[in-house]
C-alpha cells in the first residue's frame, strides 16, 4: 500500500475493513495516507503494539468519510449532509452560522477544513468544536464594532488607606501563591481553573472526570492544604510572622488589591 509506517499485523487491512471504505468510493491507499497523517501528528513516536492501539483508537469510519469528502466524493458529501447538516444547524442555533461552517468545511478551492480531520475524535464532536469556534470568532468580530459607550465600566480599584501597610505582604503572598499553583500537576491546575475561574460546581467537574463528587471535593481540599502549607513555609522563610501572613491573607481576600498588576509584575520578574 506504499505506507511509510509499518503495517503492524495487517492493521491497515483491518482499518480499511472497519472504515467501510467501499461505502464512500475511497481507496485503501487514501485511507492509509490519512491514517499516516494522523499518526505523524498525534503519535509520532508510537511503534509496534502502541501504534496498532493508536490506529484502532481512531474513529476510522469518520476518518474515511472526511477523507472521501476532502477528495471531493459526491457520494461522501451526500452522506455527510444526511448525517450532519441538521446537527450543525441545531448546534449553531441558526442557519447562517451553520452555512458558514459548512462553507469552511467544503472550501472554495476544494481544500476545506474537512481535510483537517484526523479521526482523533468523532466527526460530530469536532464539528461541534468548529461551530463553537465560529461563534466565538463572530462574537469577537462583532465586539470590535461595539462603541466605547457600551463597554462596561471598570470596577474601581481603590485601596483603603489602612491597607497600604499590608500591600507589600499581600503582593508577596499573591506571588508565592501563584508560584505554588504553577508547581501543581496539570490535572490539579485544571481542577482549580474549572472551580475558581470557570465557576463550575463540584458535581460538574466530577462528571467531566468521571469520578464521584466527593473525590473532587477531597482532591480540592488536598490541593488547598498543600498550597497553604507551602505558602506559609515560604513566607515564614522570608521573615513574615504567622500573624502577619494571616493579616495579609485577609487583606488580599477583602481589600481591592490590584492583583492584575501583581500578576503582571510576577510574570515579568520570571
Amino acid at each position: 500500500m506504499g505506507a511509510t509506517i509499518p503495517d503492524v499485523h495487517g492493521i491497515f487491512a483491518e482499518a480499511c475493513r472497519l472504515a467501510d471504505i467501499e461505502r464512500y468510493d475511497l481507496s485503501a491507499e487514501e485511507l492509509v495516507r490519512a491514517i499516516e497523517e494522523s499518526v505523524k501528528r498525534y503519535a509520532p513516536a508510537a511503534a509496534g503494539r502502541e501504534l496498532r492501539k493508536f490506529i484502532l483508537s481512531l474513529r476510522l469510519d469518520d476518518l474515511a468519510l472526511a477523507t472521501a469528502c476532502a477528495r471531493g466524493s459526491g457520494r461522501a458529501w451526500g452522506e455527510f449532509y444526511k448525517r450532519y447538516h441538521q446537527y450543525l444547524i441545531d448546534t449553531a442555533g441558526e442557519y447562517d452560522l451553520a452555512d458558514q461552517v459548512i462553507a469552511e468545511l467544503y472550501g472554495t478551492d476544494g481544500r476545506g477544513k474537512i481535510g483537517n480531520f484526523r479521526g482523533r475524535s468523532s466527526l460530530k464532536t469536532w464539528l461541534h468544536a468548529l461551530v463553537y469556534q465560529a461563534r466565538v470568532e463572530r462574537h469577537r468580530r462583532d465586539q470590535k464594532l461595539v462603541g466605547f459607550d457600551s463597554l462596561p465600566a471598570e470596577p474601581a480599584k481603590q485601596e483603603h488607606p489602612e491597607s497600604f501597610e499590608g500591600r507589600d505582604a499581600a503582593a508577596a503572598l499573591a506571588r508565592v501563591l501563584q508560584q505554588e499553583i504553577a508547581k501543581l500537576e496539570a490535572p490539579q491546575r485544571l481542577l482549580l481553573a474549572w472551580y475558581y475561574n470557570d465557576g463550575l460546581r463540584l458535581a460538574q467537574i466530577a462528571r467531566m472526570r468521571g469520578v464521584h463528587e466527593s473525590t473532587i471535593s477531597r482532591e480540592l481540599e488536598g490541593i488547598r492544604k498543600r498550597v497553604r502549607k507551602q505558602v506559609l513555609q515560604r513566607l515564614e522563610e522570608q521573615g513574615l510572622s504567622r500573624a502577619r501572613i494571616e493579616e495579609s491573607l485577609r487583606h488580599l481576600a477583602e481589600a481591592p488589591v490590584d492583583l492584575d498588576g501583581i500578576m503582571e509584575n510576577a510574570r515579568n520578574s520570571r
Partner: protein
Amino acid sequence: MARPLESASNRLLDQVLRKVMQASGQPSSAGVQTASGSHLEPELVAAFAEGRLRGAQLQSAESHLAGCPACRQLATALLEDLGNLERPRRRALFEWRRWMRPAPVLATALVVGSVLYYQRGQIFRRAVQPAGSNAEIGLAPAPARTETARRITREADAAGRRDSDATQNGPRFRNKNQADAVERVNKAAPPNTSAISRIGASAVASQNARAVSGHGPPDERQASRTVGNPALHKQEAEQPARALQSAIRNEPSEKAEENRSRDQAVPRAEAPPARESSGKEQPPTPKKTLSLPAASPARAPAFSAGVGGGVAGGWPESVAALPGGAPLRAMTAQDNRRWAVSDSGKIFRSLDSGRTWIAIPSPTAEDLVSIRWDPATNSLMVRDKQGREYKAQP
C-alpha cells in the same frame, strides 16, 4: 477537626485562591493567546471532551487547558453539549428523573413480591386446611419441594429400592436373632396378614392391657391413646371399653371388620382362631421401645387401618420410642416407611420400619389421635381430638 481560626483562614485562602486564579487566568491583551502562544486543535479538544486522550497527550492537553481560558471554554462547552455536564437550569428536573428512574423496577418487584406472597399463603392454607375442604375444591396436595423434602424423597427412594431387593431376594436381617424374631411373628400371624397389622395388634394389646391393669391413663385419655383407624377413631374413643372387651375376648369387632373392608390395599385374610387371652396383666411397655410380641390377628384390623400395603417379611418386631418421649397415639405405614402421631400436633416419620424417628412438619398443633395414608393423593391424613382431619406432607 478544624479550629475556628483555621476554618476562617481556610475560607480566606479560598477567596484568595479564587482571586489569584482569576487574575492569573485572565487572557492577555490579545484575548485568545496563552503563554505558549497557541491553542489546542479543535480535534484535540474534542478528543479530550470525548475522553479519548491518554498519557502524555492528556497531560499536555490538561496543562494547556489549565492556562488557556479559551480552550477550556471550548472543552467545557463540548462537555456540556455532549451531556457530560449537568445544566444548572435542569437540575430540579434531572433530580426528579433520577429519583423516578428505579420506579419501574420497584413496581415490578412489588408486583412479583405480592404474587409470591399470595401464592405462598395459598400453599400454606392448602397445607393446614382440613382434607375435606381440599377434596371439595379439588386441590392437589401442596408441593413442598424444599431441600429437606428432596432429601427425604431421596432417602425414601433408596429405602424403596432396598425393600424391593428384600422382596425379591428374601428378607435381610442384621443378625440371627432378628431373623428368628420375624419368623416367630410370621408364624404367629396368617401369611396374608400385613406385618404392620401384627405389629399394630400387639401394640394395641399392650396398651389396652395397660389400661385394663390400671397402669394406663384415665379412660378418656386412654381412649385417645387407642391406635386405630382414623375414620373410626372418634367412635372408638366414645366406646373404648367395649372395643377393649371385644379385643380381649378375641372377638372381631364391628369396627375392625369395617376397617378391614375399607383397607383395599392390604390383602384381606381370614381371621385365624384367636389365641387364648390369658387375661393376665401384660408387662408394662419398655420405656424406650414399644414391645411388639407376636400379635393376635383378631386385633390386627384395629391397627392395620390406613396401611397402604406392607412388604412381606423384614419387619422389625418392635418400633423405637418416639423422640422426646412423645406418646405414640397412632401409626400407619407405607412400604417400609412409618408415620406416627402424638400430642401437640407432632408427626414423626421413620424410613427404617420404625427403628428411628424424625419429626416432620405438622399442619396443626392440636393433639393428634389418628393417622392414615391416603393412596389417592399420596399424602397423610391426620386427625385431632375434635375429629378435624388435616393433610400432612409425608
